[in-house]
């Protein structure tokens, strides 16, 4: 009967496992260091893009929503909503976002803030997972 585990088995496992993980690590490393341009936040009211701001600059912006003004605060490279005149305040409870693909939505006000890469081509329709 053949053996359970041979030296060739070990080599095979190491070769396949090692090479694919090395490849993955390399790609990850590449992504980390080929950082694309500065991160920006896109603010939409309804279907209209109200503003596209750099995260590096601290600003406060008042956006006219369906129920009233929403204040969008950019500070320290993070974005948050304050003082939204909506019943559930889900947008305020979302807290701060700063990673590409993250999103704050105030559904009643139809206001949305989304972090994008300024150089990425489709900073548009899909979220981070499906892209």
């Amino acid at each position, binding site marked *: 009967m053949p053996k359970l585990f*041979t030296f060739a088995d070990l080599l095979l496992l190491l070769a396949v496992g090692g090479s694919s993980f090395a490849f993955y690590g390399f790609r990850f490393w590449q992504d980390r260091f080929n950082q694309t341009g500065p991160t920006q936040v896109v603010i939409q009211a309804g279907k209209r893009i109200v503003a596209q701001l750099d995260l590096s600059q601290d600003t406060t912006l008042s956006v006219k929503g369906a129920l009233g003004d929403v204040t969008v605060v950019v500070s320290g490279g993070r974005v948050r909503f304050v003082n939204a005149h909506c019943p559930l305040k889900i947008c305020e409870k979302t807290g701060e976002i700063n990673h590409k693909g993250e999103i704050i939505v105030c559904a009643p006000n139809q206001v949305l803030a989304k972090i994008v890469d300024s150089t990425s081509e489709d900073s548009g329709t899909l979220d981070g997972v499906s892209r």
Partner: protein
Amino acid sequence: MKSGSEKRAEDVRGRVEKLSLVAMATVFELVLFVLDSAIPKPIPWIKIGLANIVTLALLIGVGWRAAAAVHFLRILIGAVFRGGLFTPFFLLSFSGGALSFLVMALAVRWAMPVLGFVGVSFLGALTHNFTQLVLVALALSDTTVMALLWPVVVFFSLLYGCFSGYSSYHFCRRIPQLATGRLIPAQTQAARSA
């Protein structure tokens, strides 16, 4: 010198043995297959490949014909049990199963003394998962899915492939009657032909 009737009796015995072997091994595989579907796993669509234990044992102990019969019967009947016969999911599992069987059969034939149970089992698991990944990527026409999931597939193929290779080895050792296809004990055969 054996007489004609003795030869025929032996022939019949051999055929009965083969039929019983395929039937029993298929049932064995089906039980393991259903068990495999029922076990909770971190990634539900990557199966452990429990049924593969028997296929590998038969490939090594009996031969590729019996193993192929059992393997493909199990895929068909298993799909009936799980209720997905001839759906796209069946196509996935069938092509994965067929290719991994081919790879394992070739490995057993050409690489077996060098590779052990674990190596062959890992090759089978890897082929199975890789085929499915490629088909899914083709169906979605999205190759980034492949690039992202490839390490996951390799990781689980390593884990589950080693496990089922180990199990297959002990299956061969503990149930040699089934794993070698000698259901009728040798003494009985000798006594009958004497």
